[in-house]
């Protein structure tokens, strides 16, 4: 009987090999608290390694990492590429949009062909939710899949680099209040952040947005919902701004960019409502004057560029854990 006719394992179950070792990295949902800490610890090791040594940590020597990007994203792809290269892996970038998919080859056939080229890890980005999990389920057993964003579902490395940045600046998660602001409806980043923050026992997770940008029953993911910045930002330690796509104006979700900025844009004045030592984050790329004022984005509270730097260390951490190696030797 064809394996697809058997019920599939839950994504959270599927990404763990025996001994709770990370086999794939598909979603934060369902991962144990300790494992998230392990990722953060491991990333810390990569960050504190002197730059020279960092570039010579060949934990993935002889391994082939394939970046399968079905959706364009130069920025994210480059950070994965740098992370893999620093670990000594061979990296191959495939822009599937312009190759096989356009010729009508099925996703599974594409995967089978790449497997046959001795890949060890697929880094997958796709416009449809569940694609990374689908590939993980049907790929050969020796292949690991790392989700670099699937539809609106998950973007787990982005969430972990955000957690890393928060921990770097704030220490423990328990006393923190974190607000996520903007287009939660379309955001895989927000979903992964919510899971990560809650798994790490963050004191309070808030989201702030108009009703049109909040998905149904989001409260059940463990967040408090606010529709007014003036209420939601009060006394928070961390503000995470989400990117607002221009096409949201088309789907009658918002009247205009200017009204959005007026009501939900992060300005210095609004930032005064937060804790005096609060930090401002953004997964990038930022829309100045749409969701965030330049004075804030470039201001002293902003850690946006540090997020980008940390992204490499976190991706190195996840990749090395998946490939079963430890800093200072292969396990």
């Amino acid at each position, binding site marked *: 009987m064809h394996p697809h*006719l058997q*019920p599939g394992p839950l994504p959270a179950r599927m990404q763990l090999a025996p001994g709770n070792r990370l086999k794939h990295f598909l979603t934060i949902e369902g991962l144990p608290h300790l494992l998230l800490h392990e990722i953060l610890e491991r990333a810390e090791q990569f960050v504190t390694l002197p730059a020279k040594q960092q570039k010579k940590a060949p934990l993935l020597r002889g391994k082939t990492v394939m970046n399968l990007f079905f959706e364009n994203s130069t920025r994210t792809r480059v950070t994965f590429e740098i992370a893999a290269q620093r670990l000594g892996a061979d990296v191959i970038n495939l822009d599937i949009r312009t190759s096989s998919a356009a010729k009508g080859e099925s*996703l599974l056939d594409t995967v089978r062909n790449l497997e046959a080229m001795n890949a060890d890890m697929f880094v997958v980005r796709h416009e449809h939710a569940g694609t990374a999990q689908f590939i993980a389920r049907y790929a050969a057993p020796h292949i690991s899949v790392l989700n670099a964003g699937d539809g609106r579902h998950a973007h787990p490395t982005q969430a972990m680099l955000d957690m890393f940045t928060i921990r770097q600046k704030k220490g423990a998660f328990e006393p923190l209040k974190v607000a996520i602001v903007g287009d939660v409806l379309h955001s895989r980043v927000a979903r992964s952040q919510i899971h990560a923050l809650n798994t790490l026992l963050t004191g309070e997770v808030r989201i702030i947005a108009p009703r049109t940008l909040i998905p149904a*029953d989001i409260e059940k993911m463990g967040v408090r919902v606010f529709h007014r910045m003036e209420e939601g930002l009060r006394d928070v330690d961390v503000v995470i701004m989400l990117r607002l796509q221009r096409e949201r104006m088309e789907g009658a979700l918002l009247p205009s960019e200017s009204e959005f900025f007026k009501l939900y844009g992060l300005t210095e004045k609004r930032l005064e409502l937060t804790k005096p030592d609060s930090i401002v984050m953004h997964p990038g790329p930022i829309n100045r004057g749409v969701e965030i004022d330049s004075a804030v984005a470039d201001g002293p509270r902003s850690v946006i560029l540090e997020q980008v730097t940390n992204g490499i260390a976190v991706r190195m951490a996840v990749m090395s854990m998946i490939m079963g190696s430890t800093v200072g030797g292969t396990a």
Partner: protein
Amino acid sequence: MNLLISHARVIDPASGRDEITNVCVQDGKILALANDGHVPKSFAPSETVNARGLWLFPGVIDLAAWLREPGLDHKATLASETRAAAASGVTTLCYQPEPATSINNSAPVNLIRDINTALGKVHIAVVGNLTLKLEGKKLSNMGGLRRAGCVGVTNGWQPVADLKVMRRALEYATTHDLTVFVYPLEHELAGGGCVHEGEVSTRLGLPAIPAAAETVAVAQTLALMEMTGTRVHFCRLSAAGSVRLIRQAKQDGFKVTADVAAHQLHLTEMDVVDFNPLCHVQPPLRSQADREALLQGLKDGTIDAICSDHQPHELDAKLAPFQQTEAGISSLETLLPLTLRLVESGDLSLQQALGKLTYQPASVIHSSAGRLTAGAPADLVLFNPDSLWDFSLEKMRSMGKNTPFAGWSFKGHVVRTLLAGKTVFQREAER
């Protein structure tokens, strides 16, 4: 051929009969139901079946099966699916048109009838197109469809975007005394979604269909019915709000009936949490509260029938990320088992459950089958109520193996199916 079925527990939901008695079958019809000593003297059986310990009830009438042939034969054929039906106690299937197997005039109706007559496993009742090519723009040849024997017309899941066209289609169908099978969905509101809008769609980030996309369409259709006086059958209810609206409409005297797919009574949105494409259905699996409302609707008579909504697919149709897979379950063979499970769980009485599969759907399509009375067609099921079995893909007869019910355990199975008095299925090595 004359057949005497003796000492079966005869269950006829239409009359409420439930007793051990004998059934005499002559010339494809039920001649009489008679206790020992009362079998008509003139009746000389050529075969006698000792059915002690078995149940006998009318053959199942399934209001919706997507039989694919002609046009989508790679998914299923009339031969494969009618064979599966007979083995599952189904004696009447309602053929649903879809864009690739569209029924605009009498020709395809006659073709399906000819193929099916040669196969001889079940009756097929054809539901024709409401609009030409199901495009929602021009009327189909409803007069011809009626004369060819269609039991109703529908636009399936294809939208009729222009309400003026919908009004005229309802009026024209009424002219020809055709029931309109409405699949209630406001397509713009559904917005290309593939799962129920709620907790699970939010977690999985899948595009979602709100329950209101269905209830809005039900309300809209009811408003048009009030103007046109059309007889409407609502297909595949999934939302609590729809049940409420139809309950009220029935109280207000609307000529309306409704059905639900058996899987909606057992699965909910939670079954999609692993992106399982086998649970990708239209309408989507909804919340636990919706499921309970559907059960309540069955109990209080708001929902008249349980159907399979059988949609066999080839393997590749489900072998992709969730959103890209085709919707539907190959569900002919689980219709009776899933419905009887509702008796075991105490949700329905045995009479209620079998009624939703027999005389009630029969009245939607104006069929004289589905009841055990003298003169009715001898479409009968002999059923062993005690056997325990697991539903397995290996033993499935349908060409489509796309079901989430593999491995489910069921109690009781079909021993023999009769179509107009003729045995069309008999289980080997039984009893």
